């Protein structure tokens, strides 16, 4: 994309007054909300997001939240964390309330080109949520998908112990996310503190173990979402192994449609010159190699 002339990008954006179908609380203060938003459910791609107005004009700006699942071309599901004013208000809505939202927004993951043979998904904490639709979309297209997730808190999705053996980690490291396994991904979890069945350490160590391990991988691509430090490390691993790597970046936003330049991410533009790209249209998914990792 040519960043030099402020091109509009992305498809049609719908504004929907979306009825709340369900709003469930999950461990660790997370919530899963299901909204009736057919125009978005039909068109949203993995990695795209919606921009929500919390109920009762609690906040002025909308809040960007990833589309976690689309259901029957009717509903969208969002996993979110109640961290501040907006997400707390959203957590309090009930069935039948209507939520004002716009979407789908952002580029989403690029699924048009030749798929890799191995997809490695790397999540930090809440970054797990937006990677789920990607895993689901990759099922059947790639030979194998791995998911590694690092977390110090409860994850927004249920975890258990996997029955599948993976050669590149100790057998007692077997914590997994069944919902990801259900769409064909092999999972392992990491935490900096000692937790049963978790790898103790950085999630990126699991990635390194895989890449340096015995499994045949073929053409491999990394996909990552999480805190900046984790993404930077993942990008470095990708660079070192000369692998493609996509990262999903969360930036504060104004308009959500590319008009205001609030959501800038520094990337290498034409001729390697650093320029700011808009996370809401040129992102939120960026080629890790294009991101200026030292800008933050």
């Amino acid at each position, binding site marked *: 994309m040519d960043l030099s002339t402020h091109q509009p990008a*992305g498809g049609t954006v719908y504004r929907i007054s979306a009825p709340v179908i369900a709003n469930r609380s999950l461990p660790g203060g997370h919530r899963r909300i299901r909204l009736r938003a057919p125009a978005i459910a039909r068109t949203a791609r993995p990695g795209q997001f919606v921009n929500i107005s919390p109920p009762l004009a609690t906040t*002025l700006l909308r809040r960007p939240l990833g589309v976690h699942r689309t259901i029957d071309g009717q509903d969208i599901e969002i996993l979110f964390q109640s961290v501040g004013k907006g997400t707390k208000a959203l957590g309090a809505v009930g069935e039948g309330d209507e939520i004002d939202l716009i979407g789908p927004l952002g580029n989403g993951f690029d699924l048009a080109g030749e798929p890799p043979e191995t997809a490695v998904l790397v999540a930090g904490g809440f970054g797990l949520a937006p990677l789920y639709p990607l895993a689901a979309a990759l099922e059947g297209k790639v030979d194998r998908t791995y998911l590694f997730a690092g977390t110090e808190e409860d994850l927004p999705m249920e975890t258990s112990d996997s029955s599948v053996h993976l050669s590149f980690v100790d057998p007692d490291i077997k914590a997994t996310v069944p919902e990801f396994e259900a769409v064909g991904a092999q999972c392992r979890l990491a935490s900096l503190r000692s937790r049963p069945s978790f790898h103790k350490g950085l999630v990126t160590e699991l990635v390194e173990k895989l890449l340096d391990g015995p499994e045949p991988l073929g053409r491999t691509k990394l996909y990552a979402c999480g805190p900046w430090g984790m993404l930077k490390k993942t990008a470095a691993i990708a660079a070192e192994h000369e692998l493609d790597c996509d990262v999903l970046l969360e930036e504060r936003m104004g308009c959500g449609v590319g008009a205001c330049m609030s959501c800038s991410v520094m990337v290498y533009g034409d001729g390697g010159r650093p320029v700011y790209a808009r996370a809401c249209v040129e992102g939120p998914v960026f080629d890790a190699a294009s991101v200026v990792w030292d800008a933050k």
Partner: protein
Amino acid sequence: MNLNTTIAGINLQTPLVMASGTFGFGEDFARFDDFDDSAVGAISLKGTTLEPRLGNPPPRIAETPAGVLNAIGLQNPGVDAVVRHVLPRLEAGGLTTPLFANIAGETVEEYAEVARRFSTAPNIAALEVNISCPNVRHGGLAFGADPAEAARVVRAVRQATDLPVITKLSPNTGRLVEVAEACVDAGSDALSLINTLVGMVIDLRSRRPLLGNQTGGLSGPAIRPVAVAQVFRVYAALGHRLPIIGMGGVSDADGAFEIILAGGAAVGVGTALFFNHRAPREIADGLERHLADAGLSRLSDAVGAAHRQSRIGGGGP
């Protein structure tokens, strides 16, 4: 009901001007399946400089009580890219809404040069001279806070173009009316105000300013009373000489009508677009109702009406 208005000889189908910096270069909001062009009177394009500008380090935006703080830092592709690529694209797309080029610079000569280059474009209706950006180190507010400096910029632009010149003023000075007068004397055909107020949010976790630029510009409903007061004052001093595009915190027809009654011949809508892209249509419809309720047949009868309706003897003892 007729919402037509005229700014410096340019006819606008409604008084609603999409405020610079909130509507990009006019294309992004067209992505909405229900964006209603017919409610838009004019589009003020993103502030443009001679050279491309990177803009400020992120984060660039924060929410505040009833307001938004931004420090974009005039990120833009430069006048040549706009004139060569963006404007022809708009023309090819058949956009007929009048476009105002919002121009900025670090020196008087830069303003003049940007003005000159925009004047070559067939589809720019007017220049909006931004001497009020609080988010850049050089230029911007440095010109907008001082009547003589402001006049220098306006005079140079005036000489560089045949297009109508609108000067965009800053509330971050105690001398707004003086600056406005100087701009008019220097040849400005219209005024637009207000730009954002200097503000700051401190992030309580990191305990440092949240925005990459430390300070930012405050916009949104929070600043509407400030905007109404400044439009009122400038209209009192200069309303007989030229039209005012009033803006600051307008998000509904009530706010727009306040600005009009205070003296705005047109009304800028900025931050409201971020949370309600239908605001222009809703405001236009609401304005028609307000005019009808007031028994006025034309928008122009309402412009500045708050001055004519003022209490006798209003003012402090």
